[in-house]
């Protein structure tokens, strides 16, 4: 049902272990171009690991990940697939951006410099061009008046919006969000979700977000994937998952979350 012709992201038989603990077990997973996918599930089910593997922050133990039609974790050597080298990783990784739960802003740089450093050093943009792009993006996330503020002078919500602008400055095709509102005070969650909603309107961005904001997932996502013990236990449209879940674990999880949330 989720078989797509030209998936932007494709996990094929991907396995990830930490020691003897298998976190993801022969996972098959596809995301279409421009699709917005919400990933939900209990803590420890492998959601973060999934995103981190796609961002090349974790190596996979088995299987292949494809991005935008070419292998990410592997490369062609003649007609054989071999593990990717650094250069290949860097080239394919350029299509992906990530926003972290704890922001991970560079504390020694102002907001605008956080957004400039990579375009400058990686893309080789001129200072002016990089600045212009950064200022535009910071304006888009509602921080046009905070360009010269350091991360420590910003609230959590503002920090996370800088982090989103920073990732966008590299013009990725795919954006990964890992519980980006979990570390925020409740009153700051809205301003970050608002920015993500704005990104959803962009026609050339594939979005994967791990989230506990069920309300947001329901109205924002094209598809919701419920993860349990390293597998996709159930997936479907938000209506299917939230209104008529069939999997026992999904039902349990949702009732637990919706009770406290």
């Amino acid at each position: 049902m989720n078989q797509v012709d030209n998936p932007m992201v494709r996990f094929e038989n991907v396995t990830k272990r930490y020691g003897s603990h298998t976190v993801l077990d022969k996972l098959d997973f596809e995301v279409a171009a421009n699709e917005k996918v919400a990933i939900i599930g209990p803590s420890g089910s492998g959601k973060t690991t999934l995103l981190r593997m796609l961002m090349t922050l974790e190596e996979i133990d088995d299987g292949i990940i494809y991005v935008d039609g070419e292998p990410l974790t592997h490369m062609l050597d003649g007609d054989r697939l071999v593990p990717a080298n650094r250069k290949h990783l860097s080239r394919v990784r350029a299509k992906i951006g990530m926003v972290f739960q704890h922001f991970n802003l560079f504390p020694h740089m102002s907001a605008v410099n956080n957004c400039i450093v990579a375009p400058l050093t990686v893309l080789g943009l001129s200072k002016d061009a990089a600045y212009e792009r950064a200022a535009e993006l910071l304006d888009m996330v509602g921080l046009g008046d905070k360009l010269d503020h350091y991360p420590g002078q910003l609230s959590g919500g503002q920090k996370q919006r800088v982090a989103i602008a920073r990732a966008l400055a590299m013009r990725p095709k795919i954006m990964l969000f890992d519980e980006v509102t979990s570390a925020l005070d409740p009153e700051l969650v809205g301003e970050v979700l608002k920015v993500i909603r704005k990104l959803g309107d962009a026609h050339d961005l594939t979005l994967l977000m791990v989230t506990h904001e069920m309300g947001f997932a329901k109205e924002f996502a094209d598809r919701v994937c419920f993860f349990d013990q390293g597998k996709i236990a159930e997936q479907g449209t938000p209506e299917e998952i939230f209104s008529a879940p069939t999997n026992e674990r999904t039902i349990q999880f949702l009732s637990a979350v919706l009770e406290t949330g």
Partner: protein
Amino acid sequence: MQEKPIQHRLVIVGILSLMAGFAVVTYSSFREFLPELLRGALVTIQVTLGGAMVAVAAALIAAVFKMYGSLFGRWLAIFYIEVFRGTSALVQLFWMFFVLPYFGITLEPFTVGVLALGLNIGAYGAEVIRGAIQSIDKGQWEAATALNLSRMQTLRRIILPQAFVVMIPPWGNLFIELLKGTALVSMITLGDLAFKAQQLNQNTLRTVEIFSLVLIMYLCLAMIITSLMRALERRASRGLVRGRAS
């Protein structure tokens, strides 16, 4: 935080008054010995500065090789660090001065002093730099990777600027160690402060005045280093302190 600079200044004032008092009491010897001792102090300062540059360069290279180098690079860095930490600076100095010529390498005493002491301190500095780099949150590396920065770009733009602030105080200690260590160069005929003191002492036998003066001069040099490092720390941490202010 607020008290420290004031205390520090009080100590400086104390030392200065002590010196002034000493100068008055021993006015004649002060006038007699000071020019020669100052000439020695100049050499001490030169060796310290040169040694400091060698130390920082060697420490940075050794730390980066030890952490990110190839197997051979790592091995080389470990070899350097262990050899220079595991043997005495005096032996290193003598070895470079007296043994290297047998291998056809004859260096000026000043060069040997700067190299030997610099490499000696650099071996300790390498571990300081490594520790500072490792103290930076892993999330910084991950954010940089997500932005597609290479390892060296991450190190240079993201990690080292933050690690720099962490390692200024331990480097202050190392530079003071270096300053004190420069007294060893008097053993390879360099006319530093310690050398001049011994020479004057042999010629005049006015041990008390000479070595008291020398003591105070070393102390002043050490305090200059401390003040400079404090200033550097304040400057370097400005962005980060602003960062923590909220």
